[in-house]
């Protein structure tokens, strides 16, 4: 599942995800009729609109089929399928196996090391931001552990890591003062680490933080988890 944001803006993240999956020997399919999982209207409270979109997603990804394995580079979309649909459709059971991308690599495929080196002249100092939807999925620090095995990156811990980036989907536009206030707080914590690269597993968080960073003309590089793995050869 590509996700709306990667479909609209961040195709490279989708490409990196596929490349990594293929590198570990997966056969990847991309149902071109996929659109959205229905999370934006679900979070906004319009569950009728959300159900319409979600029902389509159930069919496209064959979520009733236990043999179907869905991988998506976003804990937000994965959480929608696993937790949100249970609220939208109380009488329906998810039978397919749905994974957030990092979760698939580490928990499903048992990958604990990523042999490879970032193609940079100098090691780069980086921080990882845990996307909030990983909480419900109990992802913990699995992304950081795997990324920690990539050569050429000096990882530094992000203080107050439990704090959200402030995106929150439509919240970012309906509550811009609060949303950007939270985002600036996150970036202030990033700044204390002296990081040159900010990595996360969700383009929602990164789109918001990137928007703030580029307005400040910050040189901090913003990368998705999948892009770092794909770049490491």
């Amino acid at each position: 599942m590509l996700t709306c944001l990667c479909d609209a803006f961040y195709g490279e993240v989708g490409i990196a995800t596929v490349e990594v999956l293929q590198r570990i020997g997966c056969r990847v399919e991309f149902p071109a009729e996929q659109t959205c999982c229905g999370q934006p209207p679900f979070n906004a409270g319009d569950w009728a609109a959300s159900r319409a979109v979600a029902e389509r997603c159930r069919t496209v990804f064959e979520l009733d089929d236990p043999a179907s394995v869905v991988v998506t580079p976003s804990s937000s979309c994965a959480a929608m399928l696993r937790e949100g649909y249970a609220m939208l459709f109380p009488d329906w059971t998810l039978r397919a196996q749905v994974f957030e991308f990092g979760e698939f690599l580490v928990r499903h495929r048992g990958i604990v090391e990523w042999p490879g080196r970032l193609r940079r002249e100098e090691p780069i100092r980086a921080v990882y931001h845990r996307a909030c939807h990983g909480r419900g999925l109990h992802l913990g620090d699995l992304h950081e552990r795997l990324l920690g095995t990539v050569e050429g990156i000096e990882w530094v811990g992000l203080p107050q890591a439990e704090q959200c980036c402030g995106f929150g989907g439509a919240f970012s536009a309906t509550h811009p003062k609060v949303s950007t206030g939270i985002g600036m707080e996150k970036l202030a914590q990033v700044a204390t680490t002296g990081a040159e690269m900010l990595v996360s597993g969700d383009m929602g968080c990164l789109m918001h933080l990137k928007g703030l960073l580029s307005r400040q003309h910050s040189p901090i590089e913003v990368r998705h988890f999948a892009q770092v793995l794909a770049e490491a050869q």
Partner: protein
Amino acid sequence: MSVPKVEAFARALRGEVVTSVRTASAAKVASRVSTLGEAFDDIESARTEAARIKDEVLDRLRDLLLEFEARATARRIQVHWASDAAEANRVVLEICRRVAEPGAIVAKAKSMATEEIGLNSALEGAGFRPIETDLGEYVVQIDGDHPSHIVTPIIHKNRVDVARSFVREGLGPYTEDPAELTMQARAKLRDVFRQASVGVSGANFLIAETGRIVLVENEGNNRFSTTAPRVHIAVAGIEKLLPSERELPLFLKLLAGSATGQRLTTYVHLISGPREANDPDGPEEVHVIFLDNGRTRVLEGRYREILRCIRCGACLNVCPVYRQVSGHAYRHVYSGPIGAVLAPALEGIDAIGDLAKASTLCGACEEVCPVKIPIPRMLLELRDEAARAGLGKRDIPWKRFATLAGSELLWRAGLTLLPIARKLPSALGREWAQKREMPMREGRSFREWWRERS
């Protein structure tokens, strides 16, 4: 686009308030994590157990309330029932009129239930003088303010604010030293305890099996307020029960750790009733007023688990939105994530359901909750309920979005038009772009890449 109330409040908020709230909250988050880590071998199972116990209380609430009444009455504690705020205030006033002179001082220990019913203004209206004896609540009272946090009522103020208030009230010479400020308040409050005819407190827990009232605190003012005056009145929500004192250690540790990052509060009081003939001190009468005020309705509805809450405030401290807007933005005595559910559950979503939308749904609240209240799930349900009731302005035409997402062709056409659409003026785009660059297509299109390679 109309500005949501919480957002509007944040826009008008002074920067110093945000700094005060953020600094104190972050410190409390850190001390909570370290304390609970030391206090419990397995904090996860402790939280699960606490949630189970509170659910059992809610399931057996009627029986446990009657059991408490029987046991407490046997201890000569007088039990009263109040279906709403007005009734609770009336009971307090009746007791005060019977035992105290007009104009008498009522010493108040910190209590959210009495905030909820607006007891201070009821007492003042009847000619009594309620005086808050918790340091933070005292500052709130002399400033004519409201507490902005369940546990730390003046988290929105700094020491300079307090210093100025104390000089204004003539409590002593100007000082910004917290210890000296505390001593000034202490000197003033000692007289309050000596003179008060009635002491009013809340209750952290009420034990059904023994009929005892449990209070926790750090300042000692609860001890004075509940023992020095002739009469002690405790006002408590009906959900504050625990089945027995066997559950108490778990809850005392969870509450202290979650609220203030302490292994245990400085004081823990188990109040067993009025003074006995041979006791050297203590009140002559002890009353418990059980407050419903909408709780029975909540108990029967979709947000039942919110009544597990033990008022630790951990969800406020960790909440990124709360840290930006402070407690007053929530327009209710209960603020932060717990308030965003409890306030509309008690008052109705038409009155204050907008709070549910002032959240990023990050889930940090549920992660820290000592009784595992699924707050994010409830916020989503409140949003659904509000939308179905036709409440709140819809800023985004989701029906149209669903039509777009209902067809591959329309969806792809929409994506193709996006680079143009993002240049068109829109309210949402304007709000986004005030401090953030608009997102743009970066690198290759996934769909084109996929098509070309297959």
